[in-house]
C-alpha cells in the first residue's frame, strides 16, 4: 500500500481509531494484522518472506542470549547468513550471474519480483540480533512485539531503519490518545504528501524524459535534469520518511528522523550525517566500527572508508552504478578530510567559506547522483558527457513549467523557515491563523499542483 493512495487514507484512520479503542495489551495484535495487510497490498505471497525473517531472528535472538562463545557466534552467523542469503537470492543473484556468466554458462536468471523494501527489513532485523550478540539488547521473548518491530507498517518498506532499543520500547509503551500527537502527526503527513506529490512527482517526468534520451538535449538541459533529480530523490525519500514519522506519531510512536536538511550541508561529512541517517548509522555501527573504525593505520582507514561507502552503494541496488555512486562519495569524503587538516579553524568557521562549502557539496552530490539514476554505466557517462557537450546543432530544451517552479519555490521557503527544526515542531508554536493559512496553502497545492501522474517511491525498490 502506498502512503499517497486513497487506500491508505481509508486504511490508516480506521487503524488509528481501533488502536486507541483497544487496550494496550491487545494493540500488538492490531498492529500485526494492519502491517500484514499493508504489506500484502503490494504482493500477497511476499509477506511470507517477512514472516520467515521474523521467525529466524526471533529464535536466533533467544538462542544467542542463552548461548556462550562459539555457539553464540554460530547463532549470530546463522541469522546473518539467513538474512543476507535472502537478500542475495532476491536482489543480487541475477547480478552475480551476469558478473560470472563466463564461469556459469548454464545458470539461468531468476524470473522473480524483488520484494518491496527487502533491504530495509533485513537490515533492521539484523541490527537486533547483532545488538543481542553484543549484549546491548535483551532478547525479545514476545514474538508479537518482535514481529511488529520488523513489520511496523509506517516504516516497514523504506525505513527509517530503526534499532530495537528505540522502536521495541516504543511499541511496548502505553500510548494514550493525545491531541498534540495527533495534530503533529497530521502536520507531518500533510507536509510529507506535499513534498512527495508536489515536488518529487512534478520533477519525475522531467528527469525521466531527459534520462530516456540524454543526447537529444542541450548541455544546459542536462544540468537542469541533474539538479532536478537531486531535488526529486530528496523530495521523494524525505517526503516518504516524513509521512512515516507522522503516521507513527499519530499512534503515539516516535520514529527517528531520517533527514536533517542534507542539501544545507557544508561538507560531505555533514551530508552523511544528514542524509538517510538510519542507514549511515547502521553501516557505521555494524560495518565500519567492526572493521576497526578510525583506530587503524591511515592506509587501512582509507580502504575501510571506501569499502563502507561502496557497500552502502551496493545496498541500494544490484548494479555497478550504485557501487560507483557509493565509492565516489567515499572518495570525496576522503579528499575533504585530507584538505580539512590544512584549513585553519577561523577560515573553516567563516560564513563565506561555509557557503562555498555548501554550494560545492551540493554540486558534487548532484553530479554523483548521475550514477544512482542512470540504468547503467554507459548511460551515466553519456549523461556526464552531455553536460559538457556544447553544440550548434538544434537540440531540445528541457522545459520546466511554471507550476513546478512555483512548487519548488514554496518548498524552498518552507525548508528555510523550518531550518534547524521540523515542520510539526515549528508550526505547533505558531498562531492559529498562521497555522491554518499554511495548511490551506498546502491543501490547495496538493489538490491543484501535485503531479498528475503519480510515481512510486524511489526507495521502495531497495
Amino acid at each position: 500500500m502506498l502512503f499517497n493512495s486513497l487506500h491508505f487514507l481509508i486504511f490508516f484512520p480506521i487503524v488509528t481509531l481501533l488502536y486507541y479503542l483497544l487496550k494496550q495489551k491487545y494493540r500488538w495484535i492490531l498492529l500485526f494484522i494492519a502491517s500484514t495487510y499493508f504489506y500484502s497490498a503490494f504482493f500477497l505471497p511476499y509477506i511470507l518472506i517477512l514472516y520467515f525473517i521474523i521467525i529466524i531472528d526471533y529464535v536466533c535472538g533467544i538462542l544467542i542470549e542463552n548461548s556462550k562463545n562459539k555457539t553464540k557466534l554460530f547463532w549470530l552467523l546463522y541469522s546473518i547468513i539467513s538474512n543476507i542469503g535472502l537478500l542475495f537470492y532476491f536482489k543480487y543473484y541475477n547480478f552475480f550471474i551476469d558478473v560470472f556468466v563466463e564461469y556459469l554458462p548454464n545458470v539461468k536468471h531468476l524470473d522473480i519480483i524483488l520484494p518491496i523494501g527487502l533491504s530495509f527489513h533485513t537490515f533492521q532485523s539484523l541490527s537486533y540480533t547483532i545488538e543481542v550478540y553484543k549484549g546491548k539488547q535483551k532478547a525479545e521473548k514476545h514474538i508479537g512485539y518482535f514481529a511488529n518491530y520488523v513489520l511496523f507498517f509506517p516504516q516497514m518498506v523504506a525505513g527509517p531503519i530503526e534499532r530495537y532499543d528505540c522502536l521495541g520500547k516504543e511499541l511496548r509503551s502505553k500510548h494514550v490518545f493525545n491531541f498534540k500527537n495527533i495534530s503533529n502527526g497530521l502536520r507531518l503527513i500533510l507536509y510529507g504528501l506535499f513534498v512527495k506529490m508536489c515536488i518529487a512527482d512534478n520533477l519525475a517526468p522531467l528527469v525521466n524524459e531527459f534520462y530516456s534520451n540524454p543526447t537529444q538535449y542541450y548541455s544546459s538541459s542536462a544540468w537542469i535534469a541533474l539538479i532536478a533529480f537531486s531535488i526529486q530523490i530528496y523530495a521523494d525519500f524525505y517526503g516518504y520518511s516524513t509521512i512515516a514519522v507522522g503516521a507513527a506519531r499519530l499512534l503515539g510512536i516516535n520514529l527517528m528522523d531520517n533527514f536533517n536538511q542534507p542539501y544545507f550541508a557544508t561538507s560531505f561529512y555533514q551530508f552523511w550525517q544528514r542524509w538517510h541517517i538510519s542507514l549511515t548509522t547502521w553501516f557505521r555501527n555494524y560495518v565500519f566500527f567492526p572493521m576497526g573504525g578510525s583506530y587503524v593505520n591511515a592506509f587501512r582507514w582509507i580502504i575501510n572508508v571506501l569499502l563502507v561507502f561502496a557497500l552502502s552503494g551496493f545496498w541500494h541496488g544490484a548494479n555497478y552504478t550504485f557501487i560507483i555512486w557509493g565509492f565516489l562519495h567515499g572518495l570525496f569524503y576522503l579528499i575533504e578530510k585530507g584538505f580539512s587538516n590544512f584549513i585553519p579553524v577561523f577560515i573553516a568557521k567563516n560564513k563565506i567559506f561555509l557557503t562555498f562549502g555548501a554550494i560545492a557539496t551540493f554540486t558534487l552530490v548532484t553530479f554523483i547522483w548521475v550514477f544512482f539514476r542512470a540504468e547503467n554505466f554507459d548511460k551515466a557517462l553519456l549523461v556526464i558527457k552531455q553536460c559538457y557537450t556544447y553544440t550548434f546543432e538544434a537540440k531540445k530544451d528541457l522545459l520546466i513549467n511554471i507550476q513546478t517552479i512555483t512548487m519548488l519555490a514554496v518548498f524552498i521557503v518552507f525548508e528555510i523557515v523550518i531550518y534547524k527544526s521540523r515542520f510539526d515542531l515549528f508550526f505547533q508554536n505558531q498562531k492559529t491563523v498562521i497555522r491554518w493559512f499554511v495548511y490551506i496553502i498546502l491543501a490547495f497545492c496538493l489538490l491543484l499542483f501535485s503531479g498528475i501522474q503519480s510515481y512510486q517511491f524511489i526507495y521502495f525498490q531497495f
Partner: protein
Amino acid sequence: MKKLFYKLCAALLIGAFIIFVSNIIYTKYFFKNDLVLLDAKMLMQLDSLQYNSDVLYFAESSNGTTANSDTCLLSISQMIDTLSPLKINAVEHGAIHAKTYLNLIKHINSNALVKTLVVTLNARSFGSPWINSKLETNLSQANVMYESMPAIFKRIKLTFNAFDNKSVQMRDYINEQNWSKSKINVPEEFPYKNVRQWDNAMAYGTYLLPNGDWDVPKISLACHYIKTYAFTIDTLNNPRIKDFDEIVTVAKQKNLKLIFHLLAENVQYADSLVGKELHHIMQENKQLLMDRYSRKGAIVVNSFELVNGKDFIDQNWTTEHYNQNGRWILAKNVFRYIK
C-alpha cells in the same frame, strides 16, 4: 471533548470549502491541460461529435491505421460514412478497450443528435496479454478522466493512485501466471496442458529453415499467436465482459441503437502457423461473444473471418490493422446493419 468536536467540524468545513473552490479553479484552468497530458482527448472529441453525428463509431487503431501501399486512406468509419446518408464520425484512439468506450458512452447526453453507436468488439482484447498490457496503467489513468464525477475528484483519484496502477513487472508476472494456469479447451486430446507448455513446445524448433537452423521470425510469430489467442473467455471474471455488458445496459438506458462490430482476426495465419487447435479456440470465443451479445439485444456484426490474411497490414504481429481492401470489406459489412 466538545472542543475537539468543534475543531473537527471546523476542519471538515474548511476541507469541503477547499475542495469546492479547487474544483472551480481546476475545471476552469487545468482540466483540459490534464486531458492532453494524460492522452485523454477523446472526451473533447466526443463533446464536439455527439451533437453533429447520427452514428458514432467507437474504435481503437483498427479504424484508422493505413498501409503504406494504400491509395485510399479513408478509415473504416469514413468509408461507412461515404456509403451511408447518415453522418458517421469516429471516436477513436490507439490501444483502447471497452472500459474506455463505456466511460465515454456514459457522457452522451440525452439531447445529443447521435442515435446509433457502433462499438468495435475486439476478441483479442479479452485475452490476458491485452488485459495486463503495459499500456494498461496509462489507459486506466485516461479512464479516470473519462469517469462521470466532478473534475477535482478525478484529479484526487489520479494523484492518490485510485486506479489500476500495477507496475510493468507485476503485469508481466500476472500474464505469466495466467499462461501457466489457463487450460487449453480443445475437443481432441492435446499434449499441452496450458499456454506456457504449448508456447514452450512451439519455441523449441518447430519451424526450421532449409539449412536446418531455426526459423526464428516464424517461431516468434507462432508463439505470439498462442499467447495472444489461446484463452477461453471467463464470462464471470473477465473485465472486458463486464465492460461490454455494461455498455449494453447504458445504451439501453440512453435509448441508443447498439451495434458491436466483431473485428476480423487473422484466423488464416493462426491456423496455418499454429494449427487447428488454436483455430478452434478462436472460433469458440467468437461464438461466445456473438451469442452473448445477440442475446442481450445488441446487433453483432460478424467480421471475424472476413478479411484475408494478406490484407492484414502487420504480417509479423497480431493486430487488427487492415489495408484498404480489408477496411472496405469491413465498412460494407457494418454499413448493412446501419441502414
